[in-house]
């Protein structure tokens, strides 16, 4: 008989145990004696409860408990204007008029209200899609209304259940929408497709594939349902229950408790939410730095609900007050960065009357706005960037760019030709931006870099990277510092430590999707240089008895760089950094004083940055830059 491995023998025992569910001492096939205790364990594990049963029952019980104590929001007489539901998504778009036209073609929307401002922008508009109203407006950055391109994406999808998802997909594509997820059958019993409209808003359409699911969603058929991405799904569910009297309808969690999908009822409406997963383009408002979708709630008692929300931890953006358009409302930001308007309809006002009152409102507002002065000042860190941006250089820069898009879901934001004849590109991975240079006529020396990449599913991203040509450094494994991680090397020689932190948030506090990891010889020297040159803060240091630094983190501005002393296969990989700072000249001078050598003196660049370059004693290259004017991209 061929020798069978222990794990094979054990599995035969487990098979035998599971095949005899009702037998207290099941008959077992022969196996090595040392497996006997494990077989006994297997027998006792037969009644192991299913994880989702435990969560489902808990939800059921909580709902019963809540109903017993709190009066549920009654839906009889609602100060909800005709045609509206509790939840209405409010989209901010760069070109509201164009968007309305697009939604008409793509989703058969009809316009029900439009309020133009004196400057031509649309202050507020309402359209009807399916059974839902959707509100929209142009951008008003001064009032916190920003569109997807300004935010860099959207943490809210608008989801619709429809009868024929294929027809919706085809029509939207014909109108100019971009496909994010092609329409296909999903294993959760829906046929689903996801797309991005030309204004950057994201839409999901689903047709249930079976009677059960059709029954579950019949209340929300053709109703615009916001799908929120939040950093911590479980905490968000708790918060929405407390703040908005939401009830939990369903929750799908992975073994770590991360929410893959949840549905909550608020009043007569439903919202859906999931935890962030950067590799699928699902980013939270916190990683994006804002949201272009506000969730508008029409409720019975606006003052009571608003104070309940604030008590639960919502931040007041605008307190509850009577509005000229006939609502009493306030604006709030929840702890997860989503923005809510809580409203009650208090007076019916005709569109003509609203326009009339709006003129009055504007003339009262105008002087105050003038006092604030122009807000032309260029921000020290451009939108979407952080202090530190890794700059990867490679001979095959275009191929590297394709790899990052395919393997890590990188989004290409800019591609142009640099001064040295190579490509310059900027991409976003999760909440982080990277610059990529090289290829073409560029003859510089490539600087492959080591990066720590946090994703929601290390195993999937690792497999995907290998499929796309990366080589494995090590397979996914659980690490004793609370992460599951894997290592790959891409075609340009960059090293990626792909990692998922255990627990409800897969990115550790303080870090981002992408973090540079240095393996210098003499890590304490690097830390010392960074402190003197760039006012870096040492956040953490794990050192051996001889002072060797195993792992350290330093913060420069709003960004963290990780490092560990070079050892074994982890040899120094000098890295190129692009730093956005308040005053490039001063940073350049300080870096030279701290021991760096000059690569280029501060000078204004045609792309709008004032930039200087230095090389530190460990061969890392640092560009320090201050934006001096806005230059349109491309």
């Amino acid at each position: 008989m061929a020798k069978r491995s222990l794990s094979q023998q054990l599995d035969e025992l487990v098979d035998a145990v599971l095949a005899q569910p009702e037998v207290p001492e099941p008959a077992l096939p022969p196996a090595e004696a040392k497996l006997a205790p494990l077989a006994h364990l297997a027998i006792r594990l037969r009644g192991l409860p299913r994880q989702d049963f435990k969560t489902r029952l808990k939800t059921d019980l909580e709902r019963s408990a809540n109903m017993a104590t709190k009066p549920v929001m009654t839906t009889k007489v609602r100060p909800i204007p005709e045609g509206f539901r509790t939840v209405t998504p409010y989209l901010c778009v760069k070109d509201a008029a164009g968007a309305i036209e697009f939604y008409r073609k793509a989703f058969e929307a009809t316009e029900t209200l439009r309020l133009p401002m004196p400057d031509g922008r649309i202050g507020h508009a309402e359209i009807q899609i399916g059974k839902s109203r959707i509100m929209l407006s142009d951008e008003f950055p001064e009032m916190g209304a920003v569109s997807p391109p300004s935010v860099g994406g959207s943490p809210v999808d608008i989801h619709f259940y429809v009868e024929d998802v294929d027809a919706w997909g085809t029509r939207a594509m014909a109108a100019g929408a971009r496909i994010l997820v092609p329409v296909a059958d999903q294993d959760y019993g829906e046929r689903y497709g996801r797309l991005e409209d030309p204004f950057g808003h994201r839409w999901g359409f689903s047709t249930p594939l079976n009677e059960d699911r059709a029954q579950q969603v019949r209340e929300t058929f053709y109703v615009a349902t916001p799908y929120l991405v939040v950093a911590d799904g479980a905490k968000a569910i708790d918060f929405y229950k407390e703040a908005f009297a939401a009830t939990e309808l369903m929750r799908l969690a992975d073994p770590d408790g991360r929410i893959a999908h949840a549905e909550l009822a608020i009043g007569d409406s439903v919202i859906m939410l999931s935890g962030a997963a950067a590799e699928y383009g699902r980013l939270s408002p916190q990683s994006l730095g804002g949201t272009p979708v506000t969730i508008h709630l029409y409720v019975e008692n606006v003052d009571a609900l608003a104070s309940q929300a604030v008590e639960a931890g919502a931040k007041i953006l605008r307190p509850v007050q009577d509005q000229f358009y006939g609502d009493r409302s306030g604006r709030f930001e929840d702890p997860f960065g989503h923005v809510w308007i809580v409203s009650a309809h208090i007076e019916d006002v005709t569109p003509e009357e609203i326009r009339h009152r709006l003129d009055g409102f504007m003339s009262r507002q105008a002087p105050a706005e003038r006092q604030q002065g122009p807000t032309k000042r260029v921000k020290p860190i451009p939108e979407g960037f952080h202090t530190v941006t890794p700059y990867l250089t490679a001979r095959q820069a275009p191929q590297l760019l394709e790899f990052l898009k395919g393997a890590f879901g990188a989004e290409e934001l800019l591609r142009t030709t640099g001064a040295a004849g190579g490509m310059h590109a900027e991409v976003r991975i999760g909440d982080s931006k990277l610059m990529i240079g090289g290829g073409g006529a560029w003859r510089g020396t490539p600087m492959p870099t080591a990066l720590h990449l946090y994703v929601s599913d290390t195993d999937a991203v690792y497999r995907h990277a290998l499929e796309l040509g990366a080589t494995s450094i090590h397979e996914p494994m659980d690490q004793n510092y609370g992460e599951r991680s894997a290592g790959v090397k891409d075609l340009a020689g960059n090293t990626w430590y792909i990692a998922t932190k255990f627990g409800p948030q897969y990115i550790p506090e303080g870090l981002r999707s992408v973090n540079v990891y240095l393996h210098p010889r003499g890590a304490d020297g690097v830390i010392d240089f960074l402190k003197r040159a760039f006012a870096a803060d040492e956040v953490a240091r794990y050192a051996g008895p001889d002072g060797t630094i195993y792992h350290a983190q330093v913060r420069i501005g709003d960004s963290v760089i990780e490092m560990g002393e070079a050892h074994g296969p982890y040899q120094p990989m000098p890295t190129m950094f692009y730093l956005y700072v308040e005053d490039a000249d001063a940073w350049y001078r300080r870096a030279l004083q701290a021991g760096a050598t000059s690569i280029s003196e501060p000078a204004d660049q045609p792309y709008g940055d004032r930039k200087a370059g230095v090389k530190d004693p460990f061969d890392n290259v640092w560009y320090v830059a201050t934006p001096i004017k806005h230059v349109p991209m491309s």
Partner: protein
Amino acid sequence: MEAAQKDPTKFAELYESNFERVYAYIAWRIRHREETEDLTSDVFHRALASLPRFEWRGVPFAAWLIKIAANLIADRLKHRHYANRLDPVGDDPVDRSLEAVERRAQLFRLVDRLPVDQRRVILMRFAEEKSIREIAQKLGRTEGAVKQLQFRGLENLRARWDESHG
């Protein structure tokens, strides 16, 4: 306990600390998964409903839950023919069975503390009763790797069990 009586929303905590116990008891008496889930759900719903009437007379809450479970099982046996699914010792008085149930519940809780990939395999194998092949497909790993995880998971459980029981 008293907190839960005043505020039924605190019931969640009692649920968390007793779920495995109640489930293990019912699973031990009735070796049938759907029936076990059904009864477990029944026990907690009844407990929630009669919480205001629960009197603190030295009977621990856990025992009260087991009592409800025992009554429900007896009820069901009267009305349906589940005798064939009963453990031969099914008529054991509540007290004698509790120790075994307690151990089983502890084992279930230990599963929660396994490293994530071992836990996933153990749950899929024993709770969802999936085959190694199904698990391998679902996780996108080889069958050999899944068997290895099952092996390490059980070994780990064994070690942790020994640790907590001297």
